[in-house]
C-alpha cells in the first residue's frame, strides 16, 4: 500500500492503493470516475482508454506506481459538458448501441485526431482497430471520426 499523487482531469488527487493497482481500478473504484470501462484487463479491447500526457493509453494495464507526474485525462475530463468535437460527432451520428465501449472509442479517436487532424478513411480504420465494439457500430464510428475531423 502506498500513497500516490495523481493529476486527473486537471485536478490533483491523492490516492492510497497497492503499487500494482491499474489506473482503471483507481479511477473506477477509488475516485469514482466510472466512465472509463473495464473490458478485458489485458489491453486488448480499448474500453479502458484514457489519455496519458495526451496519448491514448490502456488504463487497465497501467500500474499506479508509474503515473506520478503524468497528466491523465478521462472521458469525464475530455470536455466540460460533452462539447468536444468528437463527442458532438458521436451524438450527431448517434453512434452507440449499448454504449459501453464508446468512452474508450471517443478517447482513442480524440487522441488520434490530435496527432492526425485530417485522416483518410483507411487511417481512421487502422487507428480505431484496437477498440472492439461488440455491437459492431464500426460504420458509425468511422463516420463520426470523419465528421469530428471536419469540425476540429
Amino acid at each position, binding site marked *: 500500500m502506498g500513497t500516490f499523487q495523481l493529476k486527473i482531469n486537471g485536478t490533483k488527487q491523492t490516492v492510497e492503493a497497492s503499487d500494482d493497482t491499474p489506473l482503471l481500478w483507481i479511477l473506477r473504484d477509488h475516485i469514482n470516475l466510472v466512465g472509463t470501462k473495464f473490458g478485458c484487463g489485458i489491453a486488448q479491447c480499448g474500453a479502458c482508454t484514457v489519455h496519458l500526457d495526451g496519448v491514448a493509453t490502456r488504463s487497465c494495464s497501467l500500474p499506479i506506481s508509474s503515473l506520478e507526474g503524468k497528466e491523465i485525462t478521462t472521458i*469525464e475530463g475530455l470536455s466540460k459538458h460533452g462539447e468536444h468535437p468528437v463527442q458532438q460527432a458521436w451524438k450527431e451520428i*448517434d453512434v452507440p448501441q449499448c454504449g459501453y465501449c464508446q468512452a474508450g472509442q471517443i478517447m482513442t479517436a480524440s487522441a488520434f485526431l490530435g496527432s492526425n487532424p485530417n485522416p483518410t478513411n483507411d487511417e481512421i480504420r487502422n487507428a480505431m482497430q484496437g477498440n472492439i465494439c461488440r*455491437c*459492431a457500430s464500426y460504420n458509425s464510428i468511422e463516420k463520426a471520426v470523419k465528421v469530428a475531423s471536419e469540425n476540429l
Partner: protein
Amino acid sequence: MENSNKIQFSRRSFLKTSSLAGGGLLIGFNLFNACKAEVEPPVDLSKLNYNDFNAFIKISPEGKVTIFNPNPEIGQGVKTSMPMLIAEELDVAWEDVYVAQGALDTENYTRQVAGGSQSLRQGWEPLRQTGATARQMLVNAAAARWGVEASECTVKEGVITAPSGQTLGYGDVVNEAALLEVPENVSLKDPKDFTIIGQNTSNVDIDEIITGKPLFGLDYKEEGMLYASVLRPPAFGQTLDSFDDTNARAVEGVKNVVRFGEKVAVLATSTWAAMKGKKALTAQWTQATPAESTAMHDETLIALLDGSKFNTMRKDGDVEKAFAAADEVLERTYEAPFLPHNCMEPMNFFANVTDTKVELVGPIQTPEWTAGRVAQLLERDVSEISLEMTRMGGGFGRRLYGDFALEAAEVSSLAKSPVQVVFSREDDMADGIYRPASKYRIKAAIKDGQITAYYLKEAAINGNMYGLIPNFFPAGALENYQVDVANYASNITTGAWRAPYTNVLASAEQSFFDELAEMMGVDRVQLHLDLLEKVKGTTDERIEYSPERLQGVIKLAVEKSNYGKTIDEVHQGFAVYYCHNTHVAEVADIIMQDGVPVVKKVTVAVDCGIVVNPLGAQNQVVGGVIDGIGHSMYGELTFKDGIPQSKNFNTYNLIRMNQTPQVDVHFVQNDLAPTGLGEPTLPPVGGAVANAIYKATGQRLYKQPYMNNLELKEVIG
C-alpha cells in the same frame, strides 16, 4: 395497417389511474389485454404470465412528460423506441419527454424481457393505446372545464385548443384528468399523421454515454459494498473438493472469502483486490462428469447425423420416395462451433440481502424470471425482492440467464454484506452459457429440373430448433419436405445466442441453395422467387413468413446491390431469410486482397414493417450484419479436457473496424405493424459471405469459422 385503428380496449385494461402525491398523472396500462382484446384481464395480477407487460406515463403540472420504458435496454434501442410509441399517441413534443427506465414491477408491467426481437412488435398496439388513452383523458378534462364537447377540441404537442381558440396545456389539466373515468374506444392515429414514429431519434442516453456518466451495471455502487470475484470450476463437469484461502486473505483489501456450492467468492474493498485475491486461492477439483472436447463433440454430432434417432419437426409428403426417384441428389453437411457471447461489459450484478429485503441491481434481460429464481434460492418471498435494471453493456442472449445475479444474491446472503459480483473477462469467456456447436445435413432431390424433396437434419448440443423454425422457408414451397432433429446432452452450459439456431441454420441453407442452383443450372435468385411463388395463398398456419414480403426484399436487395451484373474484381454472394418476424435479403461483396477474401460491402434489404426509429433501426441492421460476418468468419470457442481454449481477446478474434465492410441498408416502405430488428439481419449474412467467397475462390465453405477452414493460396509479401 391491419385493423390497428379498430381494436377497442376495455376500461379494465387500465390498472391504475391515480393522482401523484406531488401532482401529476400516473397511468398504468395492461398491455396484455391490449395485445389480445378478446382476452379477459387476469384477476390476480401477481400471477400475470411471462408474456404480459405494462407501461407508465407521468405528466407534471408543468406539462413535462416522463415515460417509463418497461423493457430492459441492451443496446437494441427500446429505451428510445418504446417511449416513442407512447409519445406519438399522447401527442407531446419529443423534446418535452424524459425517458426513465422502469424497474421490475410485476404488478403494473408484464413481459419485461429483452429477447426474441419482440419488444416493439408486442408493444406496438398497447403502447400507442396507452398514449392515446392518456391524451383522451387530458382532452376530456379540458373540455369539461370549458363546457364543450371533447370531440370539438384539438390537440397538438401537449396543447389542447377549444373551438373558441382558448388553449390549455396538459400540465394545466393533469390533476383534473387524473380524477376522470378512463375512456373507452379511443382511436389511434393514421400512420400518415405520425410526427414522432418514423423520425430519426437519438438514443435517449446519448449525453450520458458520451460523457461517461454512470449507466451500466458495473457503474452501480452502494455505501459499504464489497466487490466479489468468484472462482468457478476450471473445467466443465468439475466439483470443488477443497480450497486454501490463506494467501487470498493476505491480499490487501480482501475482507472475506466464502464458499457457495462449487464456487468460492473473494470479497474485497476494490475490484482489483478481489481479482488478486481470487488468483491467490488454491483449489482441488474432481472431474465428476466426463471432460468433453471439441473433437469429441464433432464425432458425436456427426454420429447423430449418421444415425436414426431423430425427432421429426415437420414432414410433408415422402422425401425418401422422392430421393429414390430423383435424377440428381445433393447432400451437404454444415458445421458451426461453440461461441461465447463476449458482451463488452463483463457479467456482473449487485445484491444486498438483509433480513428484511433483497435488493438486486444490474444488467439483466429477464428481470422477473431472475427475481423469482433468487427468491427460490434464498427461500424468500418474491415480494421481498426488488430489482432495478441498469443499462446493459450488451446482451446477445447471455444476460437472459441471471446466473450472475443468483451468485451475487447468494454471496451477499452468506457474507452479510452488499456485494457486486464482477466477472473478469476470463471468467466471462470461460464460464459462459454458450451458443452450442451444431451441424446440419441437408439433402435435396432434383427431378426433371425441379426440386422434388428437401430433407434437413439437425444435430445440436443441449437442445434443438424450436417454435416455428422448422416451418421457415423452404417449408411450404415443396411437396416433399422434412426436418429432423437430434441432440446430445453435454455438461457444458449452453443457451440462446443472438438468433438461436437460425444463426447457423440460415448460413447452411443459404449456402446449400447456392450450390443447388448451380447444380441445377438455374439462377440463384430466380430459384427463390419461383419457390416463393408456390407458397402464395397457403392455408398452412405454421407458415408464418410472407412469400410476398420475401420476394420484396429479394428484389430490393438485387436492385440496390446490382447483383448479377459483372463488376470487376467484386464477387457477390446472395442470401435471403425470414426469422423473428422480419424479412431480410442480403448481398455480400467480396474482393481478394493479397490472396485473402475481404468483405467490402453488404447490401441489406429489410422488411420490418413501419420503421419506428430509422436511426436506431439502421444501427441494429448494420450491427447484426457485421456481428454475423465477424462470427461466421472468425468466431470459435473450442474445448479440451472440458476447458475452454480461449479466455480473452488475445486468443479470441472478435471482428474489428479494419475488417469491417460498409453496410448499405434499405428498408421496404409500408404501413404494416413493426417487427423487431435485434436479431433477424444476422442469420443470412453467413450464407451471403460463404456464397461470395465461393465465387472469389471456387471453394464451397461448409464449416465455420470460414477463415479457419479456407485454403488460402500462397500470399505474396
